[in-house]
């Protein structure tokens, strides 16, 4: 599988697995809305990449893929940081932003 589709799938699936606990850690509806908004963006990025079935030998794409790997590690760590939900939301937002840039490269 191309690294970009794999990266977007990995991000979408990791956020899916962590979603119930992340939402449970939110103390306000605004925080929940931020988390679900980023989750929806990640889901849309993934389905965009499925639809386009793009090629992954573009150097800019490879660089973004590396960034996705780095962001993925941070998302995994958020499972241990749920007491600081604001920080978790920031990490998820940054990661999904990279995913959006990667999905857009297929256009």
């Amino acid at each position, binding site marked *: 599988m191309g690294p970009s589709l794999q990266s977007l799938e990995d991000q979408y*699936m990791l956020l899916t697995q962590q979603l119930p606990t992340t939402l449970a850690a939110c103390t306000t509806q605004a925080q929940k809305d931020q988390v679900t908004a980023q989750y929806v963006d990640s889901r849309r990025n993934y389905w965009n990449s499925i639809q386009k079935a793009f090629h992954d030998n573009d150097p800019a794409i490879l660089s973004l893929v590396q960034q996705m790997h780095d962001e993925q590690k941070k998302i995994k760590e958020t499972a241990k940081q749920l007491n600081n939900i604001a920080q978790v939301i920031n990490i998820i937002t940054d990661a999904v932003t990279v995913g959006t840039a990667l999905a857009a490269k297929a256009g």
Partner: protein
Amino acid sequence: MRRQRPFMTWRSMVRMMLLLVCLGPAVSCKTSEDAHALATQMATTATHLSAYYNALAQIIENQARLERLQKATLGVPVDAQDLAQLQNVEYEIEKRAVAAHSLAELAEAFNELNTSKAPADVSTAATNLGTELSKIQQLPNASAAPGVLENAGKTLTQYAQERDERNMAKSMDPTIAALSQMFSQERPAYDSINRTYIGLAQSLALDLVNHNQVDPGSLMQPALEPFGLSSRTPSAQVPSGLQDYAREEIKTRGQAEITAHEKASETMDHGLIELSKRVHQLSTEGKMPERGTPFTLSDVESWIKQIL
């Protein structure tokens, strides 16, 4: 010089004629067996391919249901844009299913070439296949497919009636090669679609277990069924042991379903590659060294039965 007796010459001629009469059908039987074997394999492979794509389209429909369930249980938004996104992917998969079905019909029309209306069936089937292939953007030279295959339909019929299997195969060679190439390239996306569906289902199922919203009755069935007993839904919290067992089943069965699909897509990929190889052999060498079924599509059938 010794004079040949006419009787001996006449007997030699009769022997030679008898030999030719016996050999003739054997030679023509060999070539039509190649074409029949290839058409049968093409029909089988294309029928399985169509069913595979129909099952994958069902997976995407199931994904849409899960996203709506996720909205109900976790408040994750699902709007018209999201549903349209899924519908577009499903539509692409369905186009492939229809194209594969058209290929199966063409192959079946070949096998019926002994009947009087079969030549028209071959032309019609080839034209239909060309039309369906032109709708698939990712297929190499898709836009040329209708014209190419409509012409191919006429020449295919002519070649079949002339028992020119080599040219028949030559006409189909690029189409089969393109379909095989497309499947190989897209296979990672097909596997990914199935993985994300199972992943989402697992996540939702685990959340329901954690919230005591799962009836564990089916887990107890293996113990009760031999005695004609059925479980009773517990009114209080499900015992933690049963909850752990439910979680374990969700993970184990989820992985089994992912593996089953990956086996199916790999088998389908190999089946198409082998079919393409045989079509190419017949088109370049004029014969198929192997006619027997080189592979089984049982893994594809098993996975399809789970879904449809």
